[in-house]
């Protein structure tokens, strides 16, 4: 794999954080959370890697979403 840029590493790190949070959820809803995280990332696969402002915006949005869904009150997701 080609060397990743800092921004690309940030994206992967966010994805990793999301997957780590999934493990803290109840076992029966873990696959739902995982599929959701995966779908959210796949949605923006086509974003050009040079489009820094879009990627940074999406990263911030993703971090906010992660914080929100990481709250232990949220036990399942569609």
């Amino acid at each position, binding site marked *: *794999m080609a060397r*990743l840029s800092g921004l*690309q*590493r940030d994206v*992967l*790190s966010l*994805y*990793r954080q999301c*997957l*780590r949070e999934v*493990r803290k959820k109840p076992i029966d809803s873990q696959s739902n959370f995982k599929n959701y995280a*995966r779908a959210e*990332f*796949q949605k923006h*696969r086509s974003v050009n890697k040079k489009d820094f402002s879009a990627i940074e915006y999406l990263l911030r949005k993703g971090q906010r979403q992660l914080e929100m869904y990481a709250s232990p009150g949220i036990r399942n997701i569609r």
Partner: protein
Amino acid sequence: MFRSAIVRSLRASAPRAAVKPSASFQIRSSPIAAQFTPSLVSQSIRFYSAPAGLSKDEIEGRIVNLLKNFDKVSDASKITGVSHFSNDLGLDSLDTVEVVMAIEEEFSIEIPDKEADQIHSVEKAVEYIQAQPDAH
């Protein structure tokens, strides 16, 4: 002059008097310590079994099995001990993250981001797991 000499001699004797009882304490306490130490020593000895140590083949087998169960792999017949995640198995960087996380779970370890970014092939993953004493 004479008075100050008396005061000095009193001062000198006072601490000696204070030291004496503590010295006798030490003497008295030492046999007790001698009585207790043997049992304490025998309690503190623990026997550990030798570390299990995973063999290269076992690690490889477990990673290959894990990849076979991964739905994104394009061609399951290409999974071998040396396959590269993106070149041979058609995984993108997000899938690679998922594979590395699955490996973490399989061997119950946590791989820091920096190392996880370096794992791009089955071979690299096996190498990394072998270097981890906590992996099992």
